[in-house]
């Protein structure tokens, strides 16, 4: 792991400015009480990312604990349904704890130690970030409290049990929609109260500066590896990179190393839930408008007076009415394109990958798989498509059992 692997080298001009702005997006919209803590996190990270010892430690954990590098897997039987386009998966599902979330969490847990703090809090939707945080906290001896919407606690009961087993306290949040959005609000309330002793181990590329940058950098390893592996495997870069977008961490993780490769198209897939017209979706970038949510200016699902509209997705991990500001910037600059995938389309891709390749993907990742099927048909058999398989589907078996009447 080098400093360039971690954070890029700024050559793409894609780092936020001193106020954490990506164009008009990002920044900080938080109570003043949190500003010193955010400054402290930013300063500590700036030092850490150029510190050989920190990079060595992070690299060591990624290799010996998280199981990196993850492999690429070519999926020819699945690809047959995509007009023959060559689909290749980046296997983040093979990491320890089963999702890309572990990368960011290990980086931020090391940062927590450097901050001299002994307690971490985190929010979680599907539970993967909660499990990953509880795992890293157990590994490094940190107290851990996880905020999770009460609705999500129910639909992701297995992950709640995993977090508890790992020694974390799980707090079900019963405000608002009782999902990820409300878990984030509650975690902020905890942080503003306990900021002296606590690091908010933010789970996605949203939130106030510097979280979008830090989480992106720690997730960036996905794209760095995949880019190198694609060149080794196919001798060229892919025509397109596909990833699911909720808050946007796995997508930024794989996109970022390709941003400078203008010939590589970047496609993000949001949850269209029951469809745009139904009003029950999480199409933040596709159907949202610019606003402020959870400390950052970005695209938000909101009404004409700025009240957040509740999102819907069959995937708890994508059920979020905001999105990371860098995605908002990539959308507006035209560098990435964002599409919607319905619950039904995602579940069809979920089932297809399981039956054709013996891989049960997370429902989040299934949105990207469904998108890749469509894109493959559009691009034709000559195309090579890299898909970030951001996590495995164990946690989603309850949902799958209900959906498919298994």
């Amino acid at each position, binding site marked *: 792991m080098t400093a360039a692997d971690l954070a890029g080298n700024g050559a793409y001009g894609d780092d936020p400015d001193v106020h954490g702005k990506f164009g008009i997006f990002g920044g900080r919209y938080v109570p003043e009480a949190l500003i010193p803590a955010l400054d402290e996190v930013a300063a500590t990270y700036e030092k850490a990312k150029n510190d050989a010892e920190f990079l060595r430690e992070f690299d060591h954990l990624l290799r010996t604990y998280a199981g990196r590098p993850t492999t690429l897997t070519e999926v020819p039987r699945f690809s047959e349904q995509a007009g023959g386009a060559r689909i290749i998966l980046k296997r983040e599902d093979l990491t320890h704890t089963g999702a890309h979330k572990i990368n960011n969490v290990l980086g931020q847990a090391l940062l927590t130690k450097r901050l001299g703090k002994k307690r971490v809090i985190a929010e979680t939707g599907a539970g993967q970030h909660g499990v990953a945080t509880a795992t890293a906290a157990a590994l490094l001896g940190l107290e851990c409290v996880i905020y999770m919407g009460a609705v999500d606690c129910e639909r992701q009961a297995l992950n709640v049990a995993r977090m508890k087993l790992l020694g974390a306290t799980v707090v079900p949040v019963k405000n608002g929609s009782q999902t990820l959005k409300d878990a984030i609000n509650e975690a902020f309330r905890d942080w503003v109260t306990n900021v002296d002793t606590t690091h908010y181990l933010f789970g996605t590329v949203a939130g106030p500066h510097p979280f979008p940058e830090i989480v992106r950098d720690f997730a960036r390893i996905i794209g760095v590896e995949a880019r190198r592996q694609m060149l080794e495997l196919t001798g060229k870069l892919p025509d397109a990179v596909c990833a699911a977008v909720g808050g946007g961490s796995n997508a930024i993780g794989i996109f970022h190393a390709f941003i400078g490769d203008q010939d590589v198209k970047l496609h993000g897939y949001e949850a269209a839930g029951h469809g745009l017209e139904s009003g029950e979706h999480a199409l933040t970038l596709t159907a949202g408008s610019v606003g402020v949510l959870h400390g950052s200016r970005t695209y938000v699902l909101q009404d004409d007076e700025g*009240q957040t509209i509740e999102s819907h997705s069959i995937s708890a991990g994508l059920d979020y009415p905001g999105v990371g500001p860098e995605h908002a910037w990539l959308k507006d600059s035209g560098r990435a394109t964002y599409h919607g995938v319905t619950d039904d389309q995602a579940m069809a891709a979920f089932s297809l990958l399981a039956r054709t390749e013996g891989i049960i993907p997370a429902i989040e990742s299934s949105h990207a798989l469904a998108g890749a099927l469509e894109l493959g048909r559009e691009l034709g058999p000559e195309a090579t498509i890299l898909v970030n398989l951001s996590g495995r589907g164990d946690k989603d078996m309850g949902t799958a059992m209900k959906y498919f009447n298994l």
Partner: protein
Amino acid sequence: MTTLQTVFAKAKADNRAALVGYLPAGFPSKGGDVAAAAALVEAGCDVIEIGLPYSDPLMDGPTIQDAVHRSLTNGTRIADVMRTVEGVAATGAATLVMTYWNPIDKYGADRFARDLANAGGVGTITPDLTPEESEPWREASAAAGIDTVFLVAPSSTEPRIKAVVDCCTGFVYAASLMGVTGARETVNVAAEGLVKRTKAHTDLPVCVGLGVGTGAQAAEVAAYADGVIVGSAFIRRILDAPDEAAGRESIGVLARDMAKGVRR
């Protein structure tokens, strides 16, 4: 119209602190909000903050969250907030709006400032708007002739306090503690130090909020601050009352106690 400047000048002349009461618009009901605020004014509140109900109030504790949720469920819109401000301003109290940034941003900063001024509002308190992001709002407020109030916190460094007070025109809101809104057993000892540190950077009045719930606490804070801000304690009483009339009576009793407190 009573301005913040006249309120604080008068309080200073009386050798006391000002009493600032907070209630969300649309709570306990549309129309009931003005009546509740009027009860606070009659009992001695000099300034009223009308909260703009927002779906994601990340700085608020359970009491205000509950009230705001009820208000939103009742269908409160920004037009209702403006009507509430108009009704409360008519009582003679200087009336502010306390709001998270996104509703103003979405409504349009210039339009919001103008509509608020036309409704008789004298300014805003914006708890999640930092000095770095505040310029559009300060410009819109200045053009409409309304004041801007921003928050300092116990964790604020000296340069941060300076940056925040430079953005304030009406008064400076000193958050007494690291935490969310809600009455506490005691007012944090950090508050007095924070007021002192803030006064080193500004001649504006400095008011203390977060955690003040009794007349005795109000008296304690009034000894070193120019204003005492009370919200959750009033809302708790309204939530606990069997009906709106009883709620008004109950907050009137508490506000009178607080008003005595700031005069001790």
